[in-house]
């Protein structure tokens, strides 16, 4: 019994960490390249979950629904970057505040369209029965979510380290002026990175649906977690987002399971420690 509790909680933590990675890797890349914390990222995640819900209502299969939901959110991300953030180029403070305003609008529209009741997203049929190994029961769906997050991490790593696009993004993160100077189309990179980040957040939202449900307030629940992941791991670094996500996943999940009253307070401790001793985060490439 006791063993079962610890194993299940550990699995829940890593699955939640995987979701957080999908959310915060995009957040971290956008921050690293454009130097703005995109405060609408939590709203993107929630929008993904609601899109997924509606697509599943339309009898779509789960995986296409996840992909389409993610792309839908990515489209909104592009529109936001092209038509709003671009007009405020150079005014980073204004850009941050505008993303906050947009997150309020998205959250309120979600409340209007999908009402205030929590919407459960059913997990795919094949993944519902628990997996039994050596007498322990594992929730299959969470294992699959973890695997998807790991695959996404490897794919993002390859994209960043092995492709021309990744090299350009890294150049932009390290030195924007120089990157422009050598002829890298930095403004097109902004759009690409925004599409990538928003899509990942949207897919994370759909995949998180069967675990967390889609409910109003999901955005403000997830956004601080993404912020803490980036503060811990360091902005602009994939490795930082990866490690930070799993640290926060563990702390948050065990916090809820063991000291439910103080779940948020426990998150505070690692953040304080990192800020005091390593203000750039564990693997930070840029000063936050």
């Amino acid at each position, binding site marked *: 019994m006791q063993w079962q509790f610890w194993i299940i909680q550990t699995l829940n933590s890593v699955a939640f960490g995987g979701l957080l990675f999908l959310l915060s890797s995009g957040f971290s890349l956008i921050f690293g390249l454009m*130097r*703005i*914390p995109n*405060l609408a990222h939590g709203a993107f995640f929630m929008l993904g979950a609601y899109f997924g819900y509606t697509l599943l209502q339309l009898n779509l299969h789960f995986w296409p629904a996840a992909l389409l939901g993610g792309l839908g959110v990515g489209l909104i991300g592009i529109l936001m970057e092209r038509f*709003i953030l671009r*007009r*405020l180029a150079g*005014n*980073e*403070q*204004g850009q*941050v*505040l*505008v993303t*906050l*305003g*947009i*997150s*309020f*609008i998205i*959250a*309120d*529209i979600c*409340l*209007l369209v999908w009402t205030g009741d929590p919407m459960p997203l059913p997990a795919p049929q094949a993944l519902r029965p628990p997996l039994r190994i050596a007498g322990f029961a594992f929730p299959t769906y969470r294992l699959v979510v973890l695997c998807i997050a790991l695959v996404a991490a490897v794919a993002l790593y390859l994209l960043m380290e092995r492709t021309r696009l990744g090299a350009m993004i890294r150049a932009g993160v390290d030195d924007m002026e120089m990157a422009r100077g050598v002829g890298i189309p930095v403004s097109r990179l902004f759009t690409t990175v925004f599409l990538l980040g928003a899509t990942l957040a949207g897919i994370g939202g759909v995949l998180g649906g069967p675990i967390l449900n889609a409910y109003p307030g999901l955005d*403000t629940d997830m*956004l*601080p977690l993404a*912020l*803490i992941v*980036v*503060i811990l791991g360091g*902005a602009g670094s994939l490795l930082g987002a990866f490690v930070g996500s799993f640290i926060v996943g563990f702390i948050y999940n065990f916090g809820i399971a063991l000291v*439910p*009253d*103080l*779940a*948020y*307070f426990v*998150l*505070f401790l690692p*953040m*304080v420690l990192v*800020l*005091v001793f390593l*203000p750039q985060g564990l693997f930070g490439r840029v*000063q*936050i």
Partner: protein
Amino acid sequence: MTRNTVVALAVCAAILLVLPWIIGNEFYVNMASQVLIYALFALSINMMLGYGGMVSLGHAGYLGIAGYACILAVTAGYDQLTAAVFAVALSTLFAAFFGVLSLRAPGLGFIMITLALGQIVWGVAYRANDLTGGDNGIRHPARPMPFGFDIRDAPSFYYFTLAVFVIALFCIWRFSRSPFGASLMGTRDQPRRMRMLGHNVWLVRLLTFVMAGFWASVASVLYVYYNLFLSPHAISLQQSAEILLMAILGGASTLTGPIVGAAIITLVKNVVSTYVERWNTLLGLIFVVVIMFMPYGLVPGCVQLWRRLSRARSRKPASEAAP
């Protein structure tokens, strides 16, 4: 101070003093008190935003700390004055702590850290059921009786709020005109030069953070006296954003801007929420429109417009005179 400002100040003071008689209706007197409380919040955030260039999204956290501390202390049996002093002192102490943490990251990381800290206060208030009543919130037993005055009805509470507000306004005005205020504006515009001149930029910013926290805590105690109730909804990210928007909408780096912004936002919110439920969409829209089209806010914008108009008027006769 020129004679015009003295006259304007006297007129404003007279209007504020007789306001309850002019409007009469209790509902609107209460709204006036609300405007004053939010104006104090906006003024406090503006000390950081306008004069120091520091954008905080965790200001509602002080409402959480000071508000819950005040309610819990009174509920535990302490007298109102002790409770209020304790609440403000505790919250100011937290401001110092939050300031040390947030100032580890200059620039936009600052926004992120203040937001995370504010949300952590919110999360603790939401989850710690035994202490804060969780989602249901807790009631404040009763309004205090400062110096034996009864402030339970709307007009007398308005005067109590006005008194506190005027003291705060005077202090913040002195602050903005003081050498310290000048060095703060220096750290906003030219942090490197200020460092070279021997100013401790970090300390200047931290002290401003703490002072802003202090006045926000005072406003929080007033908020609790006004509503006699506090729940996590009151300290959400929306609240922090509203307060910040008030300062930006009215015009940061002016003293009157945040007051004007607080009045507009509070009135619009009250009027709109009686007709529709979509306040958050409107809040978001105002946010986007203000940032995109009026980044310097209403008060500086109007002043500029006024100057341009009066210059055009004085130029016109001159050009007619010279054919």
